[in-house]
């Protein structure tokens, strides 16, 4: 257990089907990976077996599948294309994905591609979601061009709902500027998340941020649960 995790209130998510969507580059993959890690380590009593599904059909690089080996060490099943197809930019939707959702056992974190374009894939799995209870969470990064304002976020959220044929259940405040992130970045982002929350009546389910920055923030300034992040998807020189 790290310092940040102890100082902040942990996300109140205990398992089930958790779908992570949002704009391009909002940080969905890092959030998905870290959420799966959090669930398997802190919520193991309620989660059952945890798997992570890389549903990113739009991005060719920096996908959660790149962290598959690390996750498997923790006992998280990673559903990805195998062999050469692992690297492909083909829209490969493995039959296991549908099976994993339909089984309704354990916990599945679905890491979906960016924007409504990336969320379309959920529409193709609509049958599998029928009657299921799920969390559809919008990853919000206020430093991305199309989600810098509440209007931008609402527009994107409505596009994603249309494309995915699912309804949002909450917001993840994940505002960052990579290595240039500071306290102000995070708090500005949280303010925008609250605005979007007010407009949509959806709760901010948690805030996510890099652990080393969280360590320096006064917990009183953050009025939502917090998921500390450890980056796993690194650039080659990092």
């Amino acid at each position: 257990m790290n310092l940040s995790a102890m100082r902040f209130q942990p996300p109140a998510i205990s398992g089930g089907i958790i779908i992570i969507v949002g704009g391009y580059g909002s940080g969905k993959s890092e959030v998905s990976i870290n959420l799966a890690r959090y669930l398997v380590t802190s919520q193991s009593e309620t989660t059952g077996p945890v798997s992570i599904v890389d549903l990113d059909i739009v991005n060719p690089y920096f996908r959660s599948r790149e962290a598959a080996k690390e996750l498997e060490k923790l006992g998280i099943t990673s559903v990805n294309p195998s062999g050469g197809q692992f690297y492909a930019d083909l829209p490969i939707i493995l039959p296991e994905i549908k099976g994993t959702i339909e089984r309704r056992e354990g916990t599945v974190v679905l890491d979906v591609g960016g924007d409504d374009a990336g969320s379309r894939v959920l529409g193709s799995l609509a049958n599998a979601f029928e009657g299921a209870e799920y969390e559809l969470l919008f990853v919000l990064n206020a430093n991305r061009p199309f989600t810098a304002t509440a209007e931008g976020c609402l527009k994107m959220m409505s596009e994603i709902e249309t494309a995915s044929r699912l309804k949002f259940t909450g917001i993840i405040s994940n505002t960052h500027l990579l290595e240039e992130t500071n306290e102000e970045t995070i708090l500005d982002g949280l303010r925008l998340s609250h605005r979007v929350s007010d407009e949509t009546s959806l709760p901010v389910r948690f805030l996510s941020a890099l652990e080393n920055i969280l360590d320096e923030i006064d917990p009183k300034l953050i009025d939502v649960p917090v998921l500390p992040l450890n980056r796993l998807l690194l650039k080659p020189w990092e």
Partner: protein
Amino acid sequence: MARVLMKGNEAIAEAALKAGAEGYFCYPITPQSEVAEYLAKRMDEVGGLFLQGESELAVANMLFGAASTGKRVFTTSSSPGISLMQEAISYMAGAQLPCVIVNIMRGGPGLGGILPAQSDYFQSVKGGGHGDYRLLVLAPSTIQESVDLMMLAFHLADKYRNPVMMIGDGMIGQMMEPVEFPDHYEEPELPEKSWVATGAVGRKPHVIKSLFLDPYMLEKNSWELHEKYDQMKKEEVRYELYKVSAKNKIMIVSYGTTARICQTAIDQLEKEGISVGMFRPITLFPFPEPQIHKEAIKKNINDVLVVEMSTAQMMEDVEKAVLGKKPVNFFGRTGGVVPAPEEVKEQIMMLIEKQKKTKAKKKA
């Protein structure tokens, strides 16, 4: 404007708009499709033209037609798509048309793969199409530099009436970094575009062409182009030195993403008390030949190490620059395999071992 987090491909698109680009033509290909997706939304907002063509062949020729209006226009693609564009690129170079072409390189030859590579170096700097011509080639290594060079590309294209190519490997297109855009692009004044084909009103018709049936006229055109390339060599060479000092025993030459990896290796070695410097070309044509020569022949340098994601393409130009005065070594990964900083360090340690042995031999 505040700092925003952007993917390289999006930043390139936005930078083009800041530089006043009014037309963009495209065909989808990984790993650069985000440029098109971004502009499909943004071009409408700024009142510019977005058009998806039926092939890269058509797209490059649409660019040819659009460039003839004198407006700033561009396209982006990745390696196999750039190969298809070579026809129009040669024609535009011959007809002296300004335009900007971005190549977000993936592994080749052939269909290759979708992961980052720098194996289109020859195609970019040696003229990928037919005939005596060169492109001005820019190679950014960060997203901010992609923004800055993309804007510069439009300026240089107009200044020289020549296609300008910006090349970045897939990593430059796909990774995210915080960037800042100017409110508007400040550039030195350019001459009026008196050559455009926008209607023969009160003047003789303008014909934009690369056809010269008379060999003496074609030769004249080719030498005129050559003079332009010589002027670029005098005025447009750009490069960056990283931790270059008299303590260096080794000088790395590397560009783009690979230079970032080398920087990490250099920083780590510095902590271990080993001093290595890097020469990073920013323009690949004109290639900083005399500048590399000057750095390489310095007394303290025992070895030059070229690091790139290809099977030794820029290596040939570095060898030409060093002129045999110092050993030029090579380390490359290709096909989409990105070298790790540790691998670069290993190469440097091997060179240091070699240098020690040579020294010992000399003493004996």
